């Protein structure tokens, strides 16, 4: 990696050291193998929550370490799965009396490395279960058995699980809840410019000013479709249509996440939210919760993802439960006890 403002040697390591120093009150970094731990957890929590995955999606996951969300994370290199040993150590550090729950975005490498760590943990007598996040609609109908990618909904799952774990729930119950959170969520993403290639300093793929990648993921790959860029007034209802059609039936109460992919301004993200919200109002749906910002980017891609989660009974309250982390916004939450 030689992005303009990353050191050539060990860029992820440098960033993690900087992160740990800036948030020393909240997190702790171990370097061999690389993983981070929250310094504090709710005393009622008996199951440790562990996540991780490739870097380049910050603040995911390390930004969500802390009371009310994750207990430990294992960050890989940019766009590359963490090693199972990182997950193993993160999980050992996080495991509570009730074991450890892995929150895994659906990518083969992540699944395998978390899976191997789980095998090793079980041999050590630590109970492990896994929640697979697979919200990306654009990969719904692939030929291979890999299934939908995990993208923006990961924040939602991590937040809701954190609050549920703080109620002292057990491993199996949390694993089932996590699966339900993921199942009730779908995302769709578009991009107007690729992330800057570390090698050329130019966008990693070309896209004309009137074109749009429709259905991108978070690893900077092209989408399945390149379309003529429709005006926002057409694009957003189309995305909402597809998301609503894909969501399993459930309550009409929604959580809306408008997530920037890296280089998208807050002006854009909030304007998108305003349009989407008006559209959902017109459809008679109820936006109970929302989150707007850059939470799961693909380096500095210019684009956004839209995530809808159907909120079942009690989920809203978990969404609003306090979290004290480097990156999850605290604004609309009750005070930390």
């Amino acid at each position: 990696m030689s992005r303009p403002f990353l050191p050539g040697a060990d860029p992820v390591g440098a960033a993690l050291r900087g992160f740990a120093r800036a948030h020393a009150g909240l997190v702790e970094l171990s370097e061999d193998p690389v993983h981070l731990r929250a310094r504090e957890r709710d005393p009622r929590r008996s199951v440790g929550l562990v996540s991780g995955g490739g870097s380049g999606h910050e603040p995911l996951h390390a930004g969500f370490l802390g009371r009310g969300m994750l207990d430990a994370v294992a960050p890989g290199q940019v766009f590359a799965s963490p090693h199972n040993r990182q997950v193993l150590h993160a999980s050992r550090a996080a495991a509570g009396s009730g074991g450890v729950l892995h929150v895994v975005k659906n990518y083969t490498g992540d699944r395998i490395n978390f899976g191997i760590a789980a095998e090793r943990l079980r041999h050590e007598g630590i109970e492990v279960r896994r929640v697979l996040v697979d919200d990306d609609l654009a990969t719904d109908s692939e030929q291979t058995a890999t299934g939908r990618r995990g993208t923006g909904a990961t924040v939602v799952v991590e937040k809701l699980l954190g609050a549920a774990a703080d109620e002292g729930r057990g491993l199996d119950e949390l694993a089932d809840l996590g699966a339900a959170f993921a199942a009730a969520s779908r995302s769709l993403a578009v991009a107007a410019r690729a992330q800057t290639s570390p090698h050329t300093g130019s966008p990693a793929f070309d896209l004309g000013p009137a074109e749009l990648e429709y259905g991108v993921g978070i690893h900077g790959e092209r989408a399945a479709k390149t379309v003529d860029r429709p005006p926002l007034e057409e694009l957003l209802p189309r995305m909402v249509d597809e998301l609503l059609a894909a969501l399993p039936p459930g309550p009409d109460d929604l959580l809306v996440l408008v997530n920037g992919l890296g280089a998208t301004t807050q002006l854009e993200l909030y304007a998108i939210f305003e349009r989407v919200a008006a559209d959902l109002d017109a459809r008679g749906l109820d936006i109970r919760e929302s989150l707007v910002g850059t939470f799961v980017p693909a380096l500095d891609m210019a684009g956004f993802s839209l995530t809808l989660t159907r909120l079942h009974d009690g989920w809203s309250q978990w969404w609003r439960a306090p979290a004290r982390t480097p990156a999850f916004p605290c604004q609309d939450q009750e005070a930390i006890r």
Partner: protein
Amino acid sequence: MTGSSVLRRYVAAVAEAHAELTRLDQASGDGDFGDNLRAGLERVARELDATGSTGHGFEVAGRVFLDEVGGTSGPLFGLLFSEIARALDHDPATGWAEGTAAGLAAIRRVGEAEPGDRTLLDALAPASAELARPGEGAFRRAARAAAAGAHATATMRARQGRASYVGARALGVPDPGAMGIALLFWCLAAVQDPPAPPSPLAHPT
């Protein structure tokens, strides 16, 4: 001890097969399988030399492959080696059968692939089945079954792993991971029940 001899034999066999394993992964993947497996085994050999270990050595192999070896296959081999180590420690008589079965189960849980998906499972599952079947010549049967399974992958289309992106392009060439597994059981038979059966690389079933 027999275990260590199997491992030693495996180190040598993989060193010899390195070019072929690389070629197979070039056809269906990114070409690093031969490197991953050889480097891992060489590291195991060095650790065994350094500690002067007299045991079967699979515990070391499990740890090295789980902790240090890259690629998808590295830690999957590590799981298998660890289960074999545990089972041999528990009961050397049934160790290979039980360890292989437990390794197979772990790799299936972790890799979430099925036999038929063109992975190392296509060699490991038949080997495990033969080891579990009562009767004479289990090691030789297992070696033959693994080799046959590995070669059968040449006609399979990958659903998991990197090869799944290649689609039909890899047809006609066996899966490198499966071939690596077949080599392991060939070494096992060669050590436990000599003379060595025909090499899986030499003998397209």
